[in-house]
């Protein structure tokens, strides 16, 4: 599925909710339901340091697609991590590099991607793009 299609799917899913509590509860569920990262990849090298919540990000390159797995120690961060993995994983480096994250705004979670927010998510997106760039140059 194309990145844009997945993003539109998410926008539609989140549009069902009337208020922030329902949106957050859904996001928390997304975080809980996904087996995010193999414990052996939960290493210090894969850690992205936010000041407060930590994010682990691991990538593999299989059949010209980048496969991401990730985790976080905070559950709200983990929910957004799950959303980002759903959007960016299993895509080609080119598609990842040309994609944007405007859909986060559309699903009402913009504040979590503010650069001043100390949760490591902005760095995570940067890191996702870095991996994509690295795999692209390998091709």
């Amino acid at each position, binding site marked *: 599925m194309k990145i844009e299609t997945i993003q539109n799917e998410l926008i539609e899913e989140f549009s069902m909710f009337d208020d*922030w*509590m329902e949106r*957050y*509860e859904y996001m*928390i569920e997304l975080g809980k339901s996904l087996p995010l990262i193999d414990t052996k990849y939960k290493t210090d090298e894969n850690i992205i340091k936010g*000041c*407060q*919540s*930590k994010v682990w990000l691991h990538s593999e390159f299989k059949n010209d697609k980048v496969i991401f797995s990730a985790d976080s*120690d*905070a*559950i*709200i*961060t983990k929910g957004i991590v799950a959303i980002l993995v759903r959007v960016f994983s299993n895509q080609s480096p080119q598609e990842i590099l040309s994609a944007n994250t405007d859909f986060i705004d559309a699903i009402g979670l913009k504040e979590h991607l503010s650069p001043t927010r*100390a*949760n490591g998510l902005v760095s995570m997106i940067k890191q996702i793009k870095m991996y994509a760039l690295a795999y692209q140059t390998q091709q």
Partner: protein
Amino acid sequence: MKNTAQNTAFDVHKIRKDFPILNRKVNGKPLVYFDNAATSQTPQQVIDVITDYYSNYNANIHRGVHQLSQEATDRYEEARQTIQKHFNAKFAHEIIFTSGTTHSINLVAHGFGAILKKDDVILVSALEHHSNIVPWQMLCEKTEAILKVIPMTIEGELDMNQFEALLKLNPKLVFVNHISNALGTINPIKTIIEKSHNVGAAVLIDGAQACPHIKPDVQELDVDFYVTSAHKMCGPTGVGMIYAKEQWLKKLPPYQGGGEMISEVTFEKTTYADLPHKFEAGTPNICGGIAFGAAINYMNAIGFDTIATYENELLEYATKQLLAIEGLKIYGNSKQKTSVISFNIENIHAYDIGTIIDKLGIAIRTGQHCAQPIMDFYGISGTARASFAFYNTKEEIDRLVEALKKAKMMLG
């Protein structure tokens, strides 16, 4: 006597009218501001002073011959005297304006760069904010002095037996905060100063967290350096001060070169200005300094005893209400503490708690509170911290408790 009666009848609802920000809504809910240990809110009386400065007498100080400059200089120096009286310093020139506590500590640390020698020992407490750790580490790198840490106990207090043992190393300097920002513990600084002096060590007290709650008497404490920030005590950000004994200020070299801090300049030699100007290079935060004085006057008009009594009431009430939440643990249980509660709820990340209750209009702080060594000591990644000021109410604490229960339901 009538006065006393009025003072004891503390009317928080009347006080709240002084703070325009308390009327605003956050995420559609009335704001509950419990991040006072990070910065306090500003009363209209102080805001008016800031507006008045820029509306009526904004000018550069000390050298101007014109009327505005004279007015601004007078008001700035009046503020210095207000601060001097508040802290009971012997001389006004023992008060140095800085940009805040961090600047103050760096200024003193820089000065000691010229005094310390290799292998000299300096002591820092385990309860410090990063701003009272890093400048001393930098100083130790420069001078090859040795930094030793006064350990803390599980209650969040300093281990005074260990402190006494460390004094046998004949430290040259001891740095302790008056009150821990992460836990709220009030340290026994009078004893620490006395015992440090007995072995010939100078003492710097970081008063950033204490000054909103306590009125320190620097002469009675006999402290060498006492530093604080205006924005923790109803003043503006970007201004603070150092109190230092005159003898120290004479001894320490200037921190920054520039205008205002000199008396004579030729290319061969510069003579430094007298105190306090030797340490105040460049155009200072004039408006900030004047507003700092106004903030101190505002707090004194309410009275620090009144403030302490009321805040203790809030602390006791909040402690009791919070502990009733299942799985909630408070860090820092000293009997001597101010209105700061650092806590975690079992299996829930502090960041998640902060995020959810922000949605409910409640501002608290989450994370390490710039005190990573304390978090490491407890083996936790951080805490949620609610800190109360005299303009907070029990009803607001009830809202915090409700919000935490909701967060727990969503996150648990």
